[in-house]
């Protein structure tokens, strides 16, 4: 059974963190990421199922996918793997692709880190933590250089507070 433990927005690093638990071993959950046939069954929203035409889960490897909308519209994307440590962690960049399927680096990319950790010995239950950065690496670097150092969920909390006020 999935347990969603928490989801947090970090104003400091511009990240979104999502934590979920599954009744399966880390090895098994890892397969959901590296086997394209399993991956495409959960990556795209149900109304926009994903098809992975390339999937190379090795450092530097690229995956290409498209999602098909209800009216047949296609939206193409790609991943570029940064690092993989089976079955514990993987890091990849996720971006848009042109209609010709070429990587479109002019649009912002996000970087997602996935961590799989066995709970209580690790054979039956896995905690999956995904951390997604919103903006491009360049933009993030610029922001960090500006010296922003603010706490977890602060911006989000403030937005809520402002809206509530």
């Amino acid at each position, binding site marked *: *059974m*999935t347990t*969603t433990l928490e*989801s947090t*927005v970090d*104003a*400091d690093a*511009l990240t*979104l963190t*999502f934590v*979920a638990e*599954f*009744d*399966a071993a880390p090895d*098994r*959950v890892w397969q*959901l990421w590296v086997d394209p046939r*399993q991956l495409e*069954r*959960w*990556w*795209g*929203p*149900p109304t*926009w199922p994903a098809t992975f035409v390339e999937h190379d889960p090795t450092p530097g490897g690229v995956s290409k996918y498209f*999602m098909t909308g209800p009216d047949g519209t296609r*939206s193409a*994307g790609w991943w570029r793997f940064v690092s993989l440590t089976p079955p514990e962690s993987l890091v990849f960049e*996720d*971006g*848009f692709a042109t209609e010709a399927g070429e990587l479109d680096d002019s*649009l*912002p*990319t*996000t970087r997602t880190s996935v961590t799989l950790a066995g709970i209580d010995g690790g054979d039956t239950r896995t905690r*999956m933590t*995904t951390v*997604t950065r*919103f*903006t*491009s690496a360049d*933009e993030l670097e610029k*922001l960090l250089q*500006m010296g*922003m150092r*603010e706490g977890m969920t*602060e*911006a*989000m909390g*403030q*937005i*809520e*507070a*402002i*809206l509530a*006020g």
Partner: protein
Amino acid sequence: MVVQQELTSAEVDLLFHALADATRRDIVQRVIDEEQSVSTLARAYEVSFAAIQKHVAVLERARLVTKRRRGREQIVHGEIDTLSRAERLLQQYLELWQQRAGRMDALLREDEGRDPAPSAGPTPVTRKDTP
């Protein structure tokens, strides 16, 4: 990135860039409560008037505030719509991951049905060929 967002990617960049600074978030909070002149705002912070002007310009580009002139003063007005859109965008990302986790879970459960342990006993046979 697959979220169907109301904002363009460039707008999202501007928005998060703007909200990533504590002083700017503070300015937004103040002007949402009540519109204020840039000079009034500047008095609330230790940084220079010019620095506050720059912060306001960043917020303006992200459409978190609008600015108009009143005589010699520049009045800053908070745009609550943009804030609401920022909040919805974050919510969409969270929901996307929530849905993904749900589908991952469903796939994991399929395993249980597909690969019963050998000790689970003989596979039940359903005969449909008898009249």
